[in-house]
C-alpha cells in the first residue's frame, strides 16, 4: 500500500535535506514494514495527520545525534554541541515541517487522501520507543556521511492505494 507514498516522503526528505542542510543521502534501504514499536535513533520529529475516509497516521523523521548536530550546524551556520536545546531542536522541527509540507502538496495533488497535517513535535533522548496503536508502519533507512536517518510513515483506515 505504501510504496507510492513512501517514495514521495523519501524524495522530499532527500531534496530538503540537501537544500536546507547541504547533506546528501548516500544510500537508502528498500522500504520494510515494522510490526513492533518504533525504535528511535535518538532525535525525532513527528507530524501526525488526518484525512478522508477516517484516514489517520503520522510521518516521522528520526535521526542519529551526530547527523542531527551536523544538520543544525549547517542550518544555523554555527557550531552546536548540544542537541537537547530549544534552538537546535527547532531546526529539526522546521526541517520536518518543510519535508512533510512538500510531500503533502504532491500527495494532495496526485492522490485523493485529503491529508491535513498537525504541527510537528520534536524530541531527543535515550532508548526511545514510539508506540502507535492501530498503525501499519513502513520504514526506509537513509545513510549519510554523518550518520543515519529513518523515514517512517504509518497509516490506519482509508483506501488502499
Amino acid at each position, binding site marked *: 500500500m505504501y510504496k507510492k507514498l513512501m517514495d514521495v516522503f523519501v524524495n522530499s526528505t532527500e531534496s530538503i535535506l540537501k537544500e536546507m542542510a547541504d547533506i546528501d543521502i548516500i544510500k537508502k534501504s528498500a522500504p520494510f514494514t515494522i510490526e513492533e514499536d518504533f525504535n528511535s535513533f535518538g532525535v525525532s520529529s513527528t507530524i501526525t*495527520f488526518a484525512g478522508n475516509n477516517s484516514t489517520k497516521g503520522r510521518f516521522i523523521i528520526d535521526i542519529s545525534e551526530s547527523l542531527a548536530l551536523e544538520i543544525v550546524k549547517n542550518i544555523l551556520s554555527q557550531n552546536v554541541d548540544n542537541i537537547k536545546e530549544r534552538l537546535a531542536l527547532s531546526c529539526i522541527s522546521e526541517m520536518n515541517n518543510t519535508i512533510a509540507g512538500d510531500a503533502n502538496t504532491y500527495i494532495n495533488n496526485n492522490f485523493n487522501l485529503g491529508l*491535513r497535517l498537525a504541527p510537528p513535535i520534536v*524530541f531527543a533522548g535515550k532508548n*526511545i520507543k514510539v508506540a502507535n*496503536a492501530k498503525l501499519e508502519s513502513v520504514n526506509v533507512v537513509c545513510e549519510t556521511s554523518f550518520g543515519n536517518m529513518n523515514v517512517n510513515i504509518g497509516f*490506519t483506515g482509508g483506501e488502499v492505494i
Partner: protein
Amino acid sequence: MKENLTSPFFTAVVNVLEQIGVSDINHENVLEKNELVIKEDLTAFIGIVGDIKGNVSYCCSLETAKNLASIMMMGMEIEEIDDMCRSALSELLNMIAGNTTMLFSEQKVNLDITSPSVVVGEEMFFILSFYKTISLTLNTAIGVIGANISLEI
C-alpha cells in the same frame, strides 16, 4: 485560548481516568506558558486538525505509567515499560482521544483527531510546541499526570 476549546481535552482525560478506576483526582490551576519543554520520561500525544490545529500531550513519570498500565490490565503487576505496558498506554490514549472527539462533536466544533502516539525513553527532552501552551497538572492516587494543549487558532 478559549476555554471551550481547551476544556474538552482536560475533561476527557479526567473522565477516562475515573472510568478505569483512578481515584483522588484533583487538579492545580491551569497555567499558560509561552512554549513547552517536557522532561518526563513518558509523553502521549495527539494532533488536532480542522478549524483549529495543534497538539495535545499527556505526560508522566515511568512509575506513574506502570501504575496506569497495571490498572488497565486489571491489577496485573507491571515491572517494566515493555511491549505490553506500551500497548496498555496506547489503549488508554485511544480512549482519551475517543472521549475528546465525542465532547467536541457535542459542541459542534469541526475538528479531527490524528493518530495517537506514546513516546517513552530516558533523559527525554520533548518539545510539544514553540507557541503558547495551556497546562494542567492532575494529582491522582497513582501519581502526577500533566495535560498540555498547544493550539494555533
